[in-house]
């Protein structure tokens, strides 16, 4: 101890001399008041305890990573030798995120993918109508049916999508992803009813509903009910799934949505942790023991900027912060409860890409891949460079993306070392700094009463909007530089054009006619179903919705099974819970 102090004193003396004799001279020569760079020393991480702050990969506090090596790393060499192409749909995973038109359109698309060997489980994008809890015949639906995802009005639609999933692709063999939040309970109920009708034990169902409603109020915007009853629905899902679908992930929380909406890294991390704490508490309030359900919480992705050092530190800080919260606040003991499990880790965020000189986005995405590789994950180069050019990536952009990831793995060998920055004076200091700033945001929200209160009083959504505006002002004042956007835009710069073929995944004719076909199906359903039973089940749902202690999942399953529509179910809940009113800017 005394030895260590002596050493630090010596370093401090040396640093002071360096500043006086070297740094100041340099500043004077260039007539600067402040150095444009920084140099870190052991003085910046005084009291650093390796085991406390970093630890070993796969051990608490998981700063150095969730595992000694990821599963893909074990197969990396054989993947190279067998020309493995990650075209979404490897054994046991989900296929590429997608969906359009009616259930029939999406089903036929999936059949085409299967014929190409892309046999992953359905990874469903829903249209905005479904995401906002309306049916295709709602006035709100006009022009939006089947556009950004598939339209689901009833269980029949849902079951149609699964027609090609039988035999080797039966739902006890392939997992499913549902990017759905406000009506997550309805979609999960459809999955349950499908399994029951097929005689598949619920305990065998795997998959991930996004089911992260709190971030919808802060970013993304597909909420329906106010936050408090939304959290009650979360509790009902959490308790129901823990009891009946133990292999299903309960939620896939999104930090990156919040960052894309404009949050700073500290806000992103602090807000995401506050949301996570609210979900975890909801499970506990539902009577569950923490280690029974926390292992089924996942994160969608964390990250979202070009600042590579910051994004590496961010991943380290996030893992440590979540592990500590679970251990200290929620007394979790199961290692799987303590880990941030996420399919996408560090990346640049789609909002880092630019429409101007778009091939530069490949360079940008590589930076994100390096950050991921250096912070304990697959160095995924994401997104494809043509992301800002409109919905749909070209084959060329996807090829460059896949190859860039391979080059980082096999040629640059970025992932040969776990947490390569561990112990760096700079990186440890930055990790501490991000964690402390995120903790300050987290505590601010806790002092307001938690995530629900900080949505109700408008704090979180407003803070994100303000940060987005601050960043825009910095760009316009040239305090932040974006190459090809607000600097280096002179007459001698050229835009590099690349031949680009957008893969015709979705039939535009089907997209155009989806609304009419969907409405016709819905009318037919309402004509032919047993509506008396439907209305009686909806009445029971309403009655139970008024009782805060009731779990609504069994009622929602009954409604779904008897062909109540998604909007009918949501309308009953709208009647009881009310609708969220956005806070003014």
């Amino acid at each position, binding site marked *: 101890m005394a030895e260590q102090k002596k050493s630090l004193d010596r370093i401090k003396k040396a640093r002071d001399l360096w500043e006086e004799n070297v740094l100041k001279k340099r500043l004077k020569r260039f007539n600067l008041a402040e150095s444009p760079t920084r140099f870190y020393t052991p003085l910046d991480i005084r009291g650093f305890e390796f085991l406390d702050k970093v630890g070993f990969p796969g051990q608490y506090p998981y700063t150095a990573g969730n595992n000694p090596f990821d599963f893909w790393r074990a197969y990396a060499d054989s993947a190279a030798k067998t020309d493995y192409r990650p075209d979404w749909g490897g054994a046991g995973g989900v296929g590429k995120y997608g969906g359009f038109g009616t259930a029939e359109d999406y089903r036929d698309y999936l059949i085409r993918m299967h014929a190409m060997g892309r046999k992953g489980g359905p990874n469903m994008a829903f249209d*905005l*109508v479904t*995401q*906002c809890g309306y049916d295709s015949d709602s*006035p*709100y639906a*006009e*022009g*939006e049916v089947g*556009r*950004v995802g598939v339209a689901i009005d009833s269980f029949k639609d849902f079951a149609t999508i699964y027609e090609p999933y039988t035999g080797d692709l039966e739902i006890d063999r392939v997992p499913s992803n549902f990017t759905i939040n406000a009506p997550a309970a309805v979609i999960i109920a459809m999955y349950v009813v499908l399994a029951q009708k097929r005689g598949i034990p619920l305990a065998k169902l795997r998959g991930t509903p996004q089911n992260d409603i709190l971030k*919808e109020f802060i*970013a*993304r*915007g*597909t909420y329906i009910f106010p936050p408090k009853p939304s959290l009650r629905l979360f509790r009902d899902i959490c308790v129901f799934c823990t009891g009946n679908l133990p292999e299903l992930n309960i939620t896939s929380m999104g930090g990156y949505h919040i960052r*894309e*909406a*404009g949050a700073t890294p500290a806000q992103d991390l602090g807000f995401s942790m506050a949301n996570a704490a609210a979900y975890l508490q909801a499970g506990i309030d539902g009577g569950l023991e923490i280690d029974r359900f926390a292992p089924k919480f996942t994160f969608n992705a964390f990250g979202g900027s070009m600042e590579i050092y910051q994004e590496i530190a961010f991943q380290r800080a996030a893992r440590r912060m979540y592990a500590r919260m679970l251990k200290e606040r929620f007394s979790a003991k199961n290692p799987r409860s303590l880990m941030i499990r996420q399919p996408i880790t560090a990346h640049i965020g789609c*909002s880092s890409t*630019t*429409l*101007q000189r778009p091939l530069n986005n490949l360079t940008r995405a590589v930076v994100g891949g390096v950050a991921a590789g250096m912070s304990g994950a697959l160095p995924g180069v994401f997104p494809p460079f043509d992301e*800002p*050019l*409109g*919905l749909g990536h070209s084959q060329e952009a996807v090829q460059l993306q896949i190859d860039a990831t391979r080059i980082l793995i096999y040629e640059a060998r970025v992932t040969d070392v776990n947490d390569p920055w561990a112990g760096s004076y700079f990186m440890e200091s930055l990790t501490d700094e991000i964690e402390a700033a995120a903790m300050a945001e987290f505590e601010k929200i806790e002092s307001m009463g938690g995530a629900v209160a900080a949505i109700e009083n408008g704090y979180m959504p407003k803070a994100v*909007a*303000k940060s*987005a*505006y601050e960043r*825009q*002002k910095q*760009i*316009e004042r040239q305090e932040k530089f*974006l190459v090809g*956007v*607000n600097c280096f835009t002179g007459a001698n710069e050229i835009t590099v054009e690349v031949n680009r073929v957008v893969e015709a995944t979705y039939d535009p004719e089907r997209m155009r006619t989806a609304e009419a076909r969907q409405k016709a199906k819905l009318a037919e359903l309402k004509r032919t179903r047993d509506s008396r039973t439907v209305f009686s089940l909806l009445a029971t749902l309403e009655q139970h919705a008024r009782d805060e202690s009731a779990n609504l999942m069994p009622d929602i399953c009954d409604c779904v099974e008897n062909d109540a529509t998604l909007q009918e179910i949501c309308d009953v809940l709208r009647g009881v819970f009310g609708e969220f009113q*956005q806070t*003014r*800017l």
Partner: protein
Amino acid sequence: MNQGGKIRVLVAKPGLDGHERGAQVVAYGLRDAGFEVIYTGLRQTAEQIVSTAIQEDVDVVGLSILSGAHLSLTRKVMDGLKAQGADDILVIVGGIIPDPDIQKLKDMGVGEVFVSGTPVSAIAQYIASAVSTRKNAG
């Protein structure tokens, strides 16, 4: 069209698209640039946008759309304004708008289309000059 001093702008999010960052940043930026800005918030129907524009006596309606539904949603707003005899209101559009659609929007009568990377100051300049031209003409 408002004949008073400050230019009044309605920033609107038609349809169910929840991507709000652009609309909010533009609303803040135009406010700081000296305009009177009303922001509708999410999930507005074309009818709601038209009636708010008329009630608030705005000079400009800015539509922010990132869902790909920009052609049909903009068409509805343009038709609605015309039906109400309010087609002297300048309509501008921002969002993820593929190149070929920009001309289609202008053919509907949209004054200008602003894609990502546009500084708010450029939008402010455009509005100031376009509105003064219109007022002088009227």
